[in-house]
């Protein structure tokens, strides 16, 4: 069974935000919610790097662990999904998430959070809705994964910086790249997310 992961090759990312746009369009993500974002480290300084970040679909996902209603769980492909019918919008998953992935629509005044929304790896929802159904699409967005396709963000990446797919395969692609070009800043977040790193 494949273990689905994301890998952002920061030495290729040009901060074009195509992944962000692709995600928003593919999943009809509401205003104010960003399942994916591009963060630029050391902006304007030597060593500047942009990294595209969303839910990394962690091993031993801390969000799933802290959820007071246990609505977040990993699928057999390692994709972390959640059931919006059960979510109470407490915000704990955001505190636990090492990558700032969970998002909450504002449902009232001040800090009142609605049901959590996050990257689903374009694999639909973790609720009772039938895979690929209109109900599932309205709640969670696209289910490309069910059609055998990878997440839209990685597919649309203009420089093929953002890689999605089986962890071993994308790690191998990245390692080959690093070997060929002679440098690489590493697989961002991998040790935190997966308790393992790429070889180079």
């Amino acid at each position: 069974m494949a273990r689905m992961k994301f890998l952002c090759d920061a030495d290729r990312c040009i901060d074009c935000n195509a992944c962000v746009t692709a995600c928003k369009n593919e999943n009809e993500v509401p205003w104010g919610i960003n399942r994916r974002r591009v963060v630029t480290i050391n902006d304007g300084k030597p060593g500047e790097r942009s990294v595209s970040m969303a839910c990394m679909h962690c091993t031993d996902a801390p969000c799933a662990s802290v959820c007071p209603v246990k609505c977040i769980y990993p699928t057999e492909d390692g994709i972390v999904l959640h059931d919006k019918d059960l979510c109470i919008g407490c915000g704990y998953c955001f505190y636990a998430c090492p990558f700032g992935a969970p998002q909450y629509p504002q449902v009232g005044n001040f800090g009142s959070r609605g049901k959590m929304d996050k990257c689903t790896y374009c694999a639909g929802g973790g609720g009772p809705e039938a895979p690929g159904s209109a109900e599932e699409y309205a709640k969670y967005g696209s289910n490309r994964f069910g059609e055998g396709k990878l997440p839209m963000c990685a597919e649309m990446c203009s420089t093929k910086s953002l890689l999605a797919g089986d962890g071993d395969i994308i790690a191998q692609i990245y390692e080959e790249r690093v070997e060929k070009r002679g440098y690489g800043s590493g697989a961002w977040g991998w040790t935190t997310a997966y308790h393992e790193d790429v070889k180079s």
Partner: protein
Amino acid sequence: MTAFARIRFAALLLMLFGLATAPVLAQKLGPDGAPNPTASVTNQKTLLEQAPRTQGRIDIPDVKASVLMQPAGRTWDYFHEVLLHWGGAVVIVGMLAVLALAYLIMGRLRIEAGRSGQTIVRFKAFERFAHWLTAVSFVLLGLTGLNITFGKVLLRPLVGPDLFSDISQIAKYVHNFTSFAFVAGLVLITVLFFRDNLFKQVDIDWVKQGGGFIKSKHAPAGRFNLGEKMVYWLSVAAGLLVSASGFVLLFPFYGTNIADMQIAQVAHAVIAILFIALILGHIYIGTLGMEGAFEAMGTGEVDINWAREHHDRWLAEKLEAEGRQASATPAE
């Protein structure tokens, strides 16, 4: 070479070393003489070692999204799922065990002289209102708060995931809105009982006399004894901290960052657990643990004999102020 010259020489060497190494670090050249791209690459591991939370610039207005990574989230997960679960269980179950033991060993503390039939006002209606406003909101906050931490272990297996989610959703709103009532009650209690809870000389005598735990000795006390004063001050302190951290959580990321939010949650949880343990003790002694204690907050009037045994100084002052004599012999 004098000592001063030697120091100057050493400083010069250090400066030269610094000048020589700085450009090398910033702009390494490759074997072909061209700038090596690796030199300007900040390895993600190096960056994470510099700060537990790596921050950058983003194109969206959501400021908190500028944190690219915060491995501290896993640490917070460990606190919440392991330390808080076990620590909280030990503190609360431990407190209940201590109280059960106290009941088994000491039993209910009776009014030794029996009831006199005469009563005296201990708490006015407004004081009782302040107490019960705080008490009812505390119980609601306590139960709904414990549900967030222990509900998935204790309640969820009993009622099932769907009903548990509905309960927790309601509990979240109850917790958020009851907090305002609790703060109002806390402010009232703090102000109303402030003067009588200042520490006095008599508190030392109270401790010397065994605080009422030694049957043969009488522990003197004013309106509140030292034990009650401790409950007051600890409650005021815990209430203040739990409210402050609670408001930070109620207004997430209003001038706070992810680290502040995690600290606020840890503080809120730890103080709340200790607060619950304290109040369990307070509830025990005010109801089951002592005869004649509950009516002070119930009807507001206590039996004169109860007051004489537990708050003799206060009773004397009170009777004097009212120009009334306590009957020397209890009414049969």
